[in-house]
């Protein structure tokens, strides 16, 4: 037995296999597209569509990922990383809400000034989450989101929303390709395998 066993690599492969189902791409694509379309349509009711992305991950995992990949509970080191990700998400949501409330507090700033700050913040949040989740594509999506934010700040509408919509479409196409690869790599198992006694 001469091969060195890299336990960290084994754990990372097990973890990332759970990410390679394209669902996260669908989530981000939905957020991008809804944000872009909402602005282009100039209709606040489109905000309700944000309920759709919320369902993508839990429903997708249940119907697509778990039946093909199986059930797993990850170890304590991965759970600690997940806790860090949740903390980052909570802070980012609260910060974003605070920024959205600024105009109501009479602290509105020109978008051209706010955009670079928001873009940097978004890139940082995505980067941290990418690091702790070992989900490398998230770096690219964070940079893409930051770029659309900068374009929005510099050129306003409709350039910003169009850029966001195009970004959403690009991520959606990646998601479809990733999902197709996932489905081919992990076909639905025979019923006998699911009911196996070890």
């Amino acid at each position, binding site marked *: 037995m001469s091969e060195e066993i890299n*336990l960290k690599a084994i754990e990372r*492969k097990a973890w990332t296999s759970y990410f390679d189902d394209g669902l996260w791409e669908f989530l981000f694509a939905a957020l991008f597209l809804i944000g872009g379309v909402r602005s282009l349509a100039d209709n606040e009711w489109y905000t309700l569509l944000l309920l759709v992305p919320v369902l993508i991950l839990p429903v997708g995992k249940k119907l697509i990922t778990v039946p093909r990949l*199986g059930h*797993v509970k990850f170890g304590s080191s991965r759970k600690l990383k997940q806790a860090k990700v949740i903390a980052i998400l909570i802070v980012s949501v609260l910060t974003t809400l605070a920024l959205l409330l600024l105009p109501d507090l009479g602290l509105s700033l020109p978008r051209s000034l706010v955009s670079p700050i928001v873009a940097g913040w978004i890139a940082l949040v995505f980067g941290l989450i990418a690091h702790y989740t070992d989900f490398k594509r998230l770096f690219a999506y964070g940079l893409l989101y930051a770029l659309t934010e900068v374009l929005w700040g510099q050129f306003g509408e409709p350039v910003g929303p169009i850029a966001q919509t195009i970004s959403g479409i690009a991520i959606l196409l990646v998601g479809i390709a990733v999902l197709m690869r996932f489905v081919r790599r992990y076909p639905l*198992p025979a019923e006998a*395998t699911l009911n*196996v006694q070890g």
Partner: protein
Amino acid sequence: MSKAKAGSKDDGNPLAEIDQVIHEPARLNIMAQLYVLESADFLFLMRQTGLTFGNLSSHLSKLDAVGYVNVKKEFVDKKPHTMLHLTEKGRAAFRKYARSMKQVFGNLV
């Protein structure tokens, strides 16, 4: 039989201490997978190890027989499920195996 001695234990040969149950490549793969996870079901292990249904079942039976793996049968969404995890004995055996292998190659290189 959980250990087959390659040589006499008394002559200080580290090869003699290698756990032959774990030393088999497929079982080593299974043990390594379960070592880094809290638990996993049969399907997940099949996907990660690349073993066939029959192969995995056979090796898990051997690991279960020596007390390294615990097989827990439960229902998830009204469907029968088999979750597997390393026992404390299994984790200790895996760590000991890793130390033994390091010692073997440390002495050879």
